[in-house]
């Protein structure tokens, strides 16, 4: 059976992972290569590397790091952050990324989804959306969740799917960082009827949050989180065991 995926997300700035501590046996928790290897060995099903660098120098370093990660870690790698053009897709795919996540870049130019899907295949185009409740509806936010685009999230996700996105990451700004569980209501309302894989993000605080997510929302294919993994609050190995014990298909 196809398993539910667990995906740690690593924010990288100037070649270093931004968050991270409490890793037993890891001398340098800020090294994307070491942390990536650590997660891969713990059973992470996929890794997301998010480039939060603004400078050209930082971007160059990121590309270098990505190449190093991809030459040592043999599980799927998704790369996001600063993807605005087809050239950006090419740049990270050439360094060993398998999928590319677009967010603000696709909001500015939705055709980017179509063009990238045509050139590289839908399987490598991930549409990531930061969504927040505004006046009773769901709005898509750009620029790392700082700017309300006014776009209706349900419409946006549908549009992304029809333009050729191969996967959706839905990040709830409302539950992000709250650690009280994933945003089930938003996930159902926004992604309940899409026919491509859905990755839930925002709100996980403990193992049970993932169990509830997969039990209650069968259309969700994967759970993504950052700090709870980086700070050691949830161990991926333990999480996988509990998933299996609860009858949720997991890769052990």
């Amino acid at each position, binding site marked *: *059976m*196809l*398993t539910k*995926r667990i995906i740690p997300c690593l924010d990288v700035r100037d070649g270093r992972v931004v968050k991270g501590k409490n890793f037993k046996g890891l001398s340098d928790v800020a090294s994307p290569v070491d942390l990536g290897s650590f997660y*891969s060995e713990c059973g992470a*099903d996929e890794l997301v590397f998010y480039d939060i660098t603004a400078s050209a120098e930082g971007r160059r370093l990121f590309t270098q790091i990505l*190449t190093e990660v*991809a*030459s*040592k870690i*043999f*599980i*799927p790698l998704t790369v996001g952050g600063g993807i605005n053009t087809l050239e950006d897709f090419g740049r990270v*795919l*050439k*360094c*060993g*990324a*398998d999928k590319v996540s677009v967010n603000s870049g696709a909001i500015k130019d939705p055709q980017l989804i179509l063009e990238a899907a045509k050139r590289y*295949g839908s*399987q*490598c185009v991930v549409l990531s959306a930061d969504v927040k409740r505004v006046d009773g509806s769901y709005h898509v936010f750009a620029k790392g969740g700082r700017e309300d685009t006014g776009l209706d999230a349900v419409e946006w996700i549908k549009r992304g799917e029809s333009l050729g996105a*191969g*996967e959706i990451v839905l990040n709830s700004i409302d539950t992000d960082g709250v650690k009280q569980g994933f945003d089930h209501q938003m996930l159902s309302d926004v992604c309940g009827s899409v*026919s*491509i*894989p859905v990755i839930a993000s925002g709100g996980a605080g403990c193992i049970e949050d993932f169990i509830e997510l997969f039990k209650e929302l069968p259309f969700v*294919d*994967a759970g993504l989180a950052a700090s709870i993994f980086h700070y050691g609050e949830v161990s991926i190995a333990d999480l996988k065991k509990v998933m299996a014990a609860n009858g949720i298909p997991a*890769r052990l």
Partner: protein
Amino acid sequence: MIAVIDYGVGNLFSLKSSFAALGLEAVVTSDPLVLAKADHIVLPGVGAFGDAAEKLKTSGLWDVVKSEAHCGKPLLGICLGMQLLLEKSYEFGQFEGLGLIPGEVKPIADKLAEKDASEGSSFAADLKIPQMGWNSLIMTNDSPIFKDTKNGEFMYFVHSFYCDAPAENVTSVCEYGAKLTASVQNGNVYGCQFHPEKSGPAGLRILSAFASL
């Protein structure tokens, strides 16, 4: 030396790195002479069947791959590369394949609909296409590339079409509503629907076993 065929389709970086991690020399190439000199050939591929077949023909490698395989050289097709080994594909039209393995490439959706019709299930409605993620192998026939692989090991799949091949050529399947072909073999020609280069240590063991043929 292992030759990884570069015909402008797919991410070859991981494949090359995987062999490097195993301490094996792999050359990414579109040169027929290099293919002729290689001990093993890997045919990768992502995207659509028709485009890929066309690119392989335009690059002049279609016949080279066939003749090298006919001479008995170990050949491994991965993902779309495996599908190209079969006789025919129905992905966005009808296309001729390399014909190195009997069988045809068909939509997963059709297979699920067929099963639903006969069993009253609702897989076609419930399961997403493509199958994307980790699924476990159910071994159906012995194959030397699985000499270090256990039944039930997880591999990473991304595909919307599957290989409908004779049972004697299918070496493993995975369960996705129906049993979908996960790997095939016909003599010295091998195919994996999943990506061994993206399937962690378990995948590397398969690449290593292939390279030791």
